[in-house]
């Protein structure tokens, strides 16, 4: 990988991943969660969906995750924007099955976490 330092995957919801969003950038590290809609064994590309939005995941680097359509998965990886059609695909470096997760709660938690980090960042700046 190009980056010598790997960034932590910022947890986001799929709704936040639209072309003008700050996360919609090449090589940004993200943590995404959604239900697996489809999976191709040949290409190792899966599609997760949450809240009406979907995202393609390249799972070729993953080894121990078994994919079952209909289950909920969480991936951490780097976003890659394909130049040809401006479509995003996550190059997953890790992933796991998170069946049973309460997505509403998760979304709220993500918000709260961001809020906390923001405050934390502010206070750090004051210092």
């Amino acid at each position: 990988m190009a980056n010598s330092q790997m960034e932590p995957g910022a947890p986001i919801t799929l709704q936040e991943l639209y072309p003008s969003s700050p996360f919609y950038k090449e090589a940004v590290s993200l943590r995404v969660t959604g239900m697996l809609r489809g999976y191709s064994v040949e290409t190792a590309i899966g599609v997760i969906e949450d809240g009406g939005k979907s995202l393609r995941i390249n799972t070729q680097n993953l080894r121990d995750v078994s994919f079952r359509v209909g289950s909920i998965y969480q991936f951490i990886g780097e976003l890659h924007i394909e130049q040809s059609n401006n479509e995003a695909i996550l190059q997953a470096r890790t992933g796991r099955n998170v069946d049973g997760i309460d997505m509403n709660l998760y979304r709220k938690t993500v918000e709260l976490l961001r809020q906390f980090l923001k405050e934390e960042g502010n206070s750090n700046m004051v210092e």
Partner: protein
Amino acid sequence: MENATILTIKELVNKGRAVTGASSLFSSAASHSSSESSSKNPNSRPGSFDSDLTCKFLAPLSHPAVIVGTISLPSKTLICPNRYCFRFSDGDLTICCDILRFEIRAIGSKICVLSWNFLPMKHCGGFLEIIKWKFMDTGNLLSRCSGIGSFPLFPSLFPSRNGDRKSRYCVHGVLESISPVSVVSCMDGESSDSVNLPGFLVHVMACECKAYSQNAAVGCSHAFEKSAFVYFCGLVVTSWHPAIRKLVGRNVALSGLKKKMIYVRGDSLLVFVTTESSVLHPPCISKKQIVLKTVVDRRGNCGSYLGFVKGVYLKGKLVEMDEDVWLLLTDQILNRSHSIRTGSLICIRNVHFVNTKFSWGEVLILGACFKTSITVEFFSPFETSCLVDSCRQNSLSRFIESLSFPARFWALLVRSCLQKFNGIPSEKEILRSCQKDELTKMYAESQIPSFMFQPRGGIFTEFCMHESCGCNSEAHDCNLKLVMSISSFVQHYKVMLNELLSQINKNSSANNCLSHSSSTWKRDNHTNTKTLGSDDIGVILLGKLKISSSGRLQLHDRTSSIDVLTPDLLSDRNAHRIFEVSDYNLIMEGLPESMLHMPFLHNSLRCRNVVNPTPLAIENTLTVRFSLSLGTGSCKQVYGHHSLDWRHDLNEFKGGRFHLFRLTHKFPMLKNGHPGMPDCTSVFVEAIVLPLELICSVTEEDAAAPYFGEHDTSQEIRPHKRCKTNNGLQRERALSVPHEISCQMTIRCASSHCLVSAATLSNLKEKKSGNMLSAKRVLLEFIPECSNYYQALQIGGCYLMKHGTNDSFCAGRSGISNNDKISFRPETRLWSVEFSFDEDLTHDGSVDVYPLVSSQPSLVEKQHVSSPQPCSDVSLLLPYDAKGLFSVFLKNLEELNKPYAAGKNNNNTSCCTHLETIMQAEPSLVPPSNSLFPEGNLASFRGDVVAVDAVTSSVVDVSSSYCINVLVNHQIVKIFGPLRRHSYLTGFGPGASATFYRILGTGEENRFVLTSASFIKINSRKASDGRQLEKPAHQAALCLPKVTPQEYVPCMLAGPPACNSFSGNKDNQQIKSACKVLSVYLLVLQTRSDDPSENECRNNFDIPLAGFVVDDGSSVYLCWTSGERAFTILRLHEALPEEDIDVAQWTKRDSGRETTAYHLEQIVRVHKRIVMKCNGSQIDTLFRDITVAVTSDQLLAKSEDTFLKWLIPNAISGPLWEVARSSMDMKMIAHLEREQCVEMDTSRLNLQNVWGNEVSQVDPLVRAWSLLQGLLNS
């Protein structure tokens, strides 16, 4: 047949084993004559005997065997208690026998017994049941169906004297009935001495044709319409009784009879009497149908009944036939055949059918009278004991014979119930049995109404004039209540609840509803209570009252015991006296929720359970506690052998002087109670010693002639002596004590004996200081031996104690002063006393008596319900003037600082709505205490318990306690505090009417706190069938959390405020967090109680201390806890996972036995106390060194050891727990160590020690949402 060995009787008798044998082991019926093939061996008969009995079949011989011998009539050579049964002899030995397919010709002939049962008997070697037989002499066989033979009743030694003109009559007809053998004393013509001649009567429906032709006996066109009686008279002729008995219902002819006129009850009756030349002409055997089920043939009141014997009880007096059909063989004179055994098919002819409705259910009684005859149609294939008459006729059997059939049946049930009663401490069994008979008789006499007695007319009257002698008229309804032993009683309800439960389960599974699964209700099954009144139950219990080792009052008999809740008791409770409990409520605690809404099946009680109380092997999936709440005055003593007792009682009063004291408070038992206090085995009461003594002037003569009956002690027999009142009394009234008050004293003894006598109340003289001037308050200490007294004493009750130099009040002190601690001596006797006041002593006629304060407060309460029968041992009638004085001493203790009635605004609100508003209010909050010690006024009042809630509060000092909602004056009062073992009484819970003594007012309206000195008395319980629980709003509130006895929070953390010296510790904050169990550190398991009667309840073991290593995500703690919380963390209430451990030996796949707790209980029960320690020095290596120590002398089995160790991984694999913890200091650790006698070794792992106050399972989602909510709000 050819291979069959010939057995001798001697061989059989010497072996002494019950066996069955046959000539052939293969069914080769074809080779036999047709008549034989029709009589099948009962062993191979397909059973219509729907037996739930666990009878053993008779052991068959392994080889074919026959017995050869002769059948003879009974004779003196073999004395059998049943007297008139056939004999069988093979020339060597003679034994009793019975025979199927009997023919007269068989008598005296040599026969070969082809199929038989042999049963050993004590007195005459054995009993042979001949199933199949044939004549040895084949020549005889040819003439077999030729029909008639003639059998002279007298042995043919005497040539027939045909010339006797008197004996020329003959009777020919159907033999209707036969009487038992009775003895008539008559004058012997030759010696003019009176001799006892045995004889029996036979009733024949005869044909009137004069000439009897031998050839026309069978199949003729005779009309058998004329009733004729034949008397078989004399020793020799009487021996024909068993043979004639076999002929009942058949055609017979008797010739050579003479006519006699006898007089029965003034009527003359023509009777044929046998003579020396009498001859019997038996019928030819006609083919009979084999009947395999009950056949009832009834004509009017009498009829015949064919059925299988299901059980023989009480020496054969009571025979169980079909369901709720009982044969009574009470008349001593009746001949009972040996072969009436459990499993035999018998035909009862001429028996009375009495359909009787008892209060507990309907029963068909088959009453045997003198006309009844019983023949065995098939012998029992089971190895059951033979019926042997005991010829002893005692007063009980005579008494029972004088009753009508329903009453006889009832009396027999009572007798069988007392059978199991270890009533009399006598060593000799016979003596004991006699005493039980006597007791039964006395008890039955007192219960059976007079119309159920029926005069008996003797055998001639009842046999010959059967219809007119009243044998006919029966009372068909009978309000006698069933007397049951306690174990059968409890068993009955257990069975009923189980049936109900299975019905519910069936319904719920049909609805595919999982909410009723047993695990759902098990969690809180101590909450639900149902109560049944004795009127609905219709059962009387007899038992003795005792106090169990756990301090509960129990009614017990030999079979079992049951907890009892009683409002009043005579203080004169002798442990050997038997009480009759008729008015009570049965309380069933711990029913599953689903059962509350089901109507109770009113299963009629089965009499079988009474006479044969072998516990049915029912699967006990329910853990219901049964207890009785007695009504007032319901506990009557059964008239027993206490004629000496009352005399002794009265002697105690003779010229005696008595202290008078009143109980003002009872302190609860501190047994196993407070950790902070030294072990105290004594119990204390507070009493006020009145400055008066009672001088009784009962004289010797009075004591010798007491009055009988409580009701007779009304005005008529009271000697209306004018009671002298001291003149000074008027002036000094209520201020100081007068010198002398005359009064009238009624002493009630244990039975209904009463004695009225004059007595004087005079100023108590003390040794030094002269007269005692005012009442003194003292503390009475009861050592454990006297704890019976403690139980019986009632707060507010007045008691007498004999005054002597050595009594408890006087011994070793010059006088009583306030706040003295006085030890009660075990030999001291107390009598309860009540006062009443004559309104106007100058009136000669009417005396208005009313109690000012009843010694039993519940009496006053319930006057409208039950008769205000006085229950105290002694009542004193005082002049009206003394009332003022006594009102000072006898002020009401139940109304101290009582919460006032609801305000005027609320007057219109009905109590119900008020209740509801309270119920719907949010969880009860504990009153905040802002001072180190709680302050407030003490209060005492009475109210109805509406609900008991667990307090949901984070306030540390009262956590794990309960809030009791009590309805007082139509308003809800909340009482907080821990309900510990000493105060958790039998029957306490919603529906109980209780009096709370000395509870602390908190300053807030209607809020009180239980202190360690508070006492709860349960006055009564409402009969409820749970219907009022239907409103869902109530359901939640009425849920009584399981009160685990001995479960307490160490007093440093949360004890009753009064003893909590640490409650002010501000640092002791309770923190809740989710924890995961990393390991078990220490586990103490012990049995809860030594009382076997309590062993039925769930979780009969306790975890007084358990230490767990827990991780709450941020740090690791050593978390200590106890009781139910430890149960939860160890997951003991969960089902045992099969795959985790080789549990094959532990697990029976019964429902209810699958929990870990159940299996653990088995181990704890054996070893009493188990301490398991993990000794590793690192958290990860804790299990490497586990020690298990037990207190019993038994070795811990390998499997038990494995099971105990398995608890650790089982706990570790548990879910997240939310634990409310507070820190522990060294003091508390030291205290726990001392209390539990274990080394907690808290410093080994260098972890922080915390106490787990509450444990609940974490739902991570719920927890997460609530966390989020909290964060968003902040």
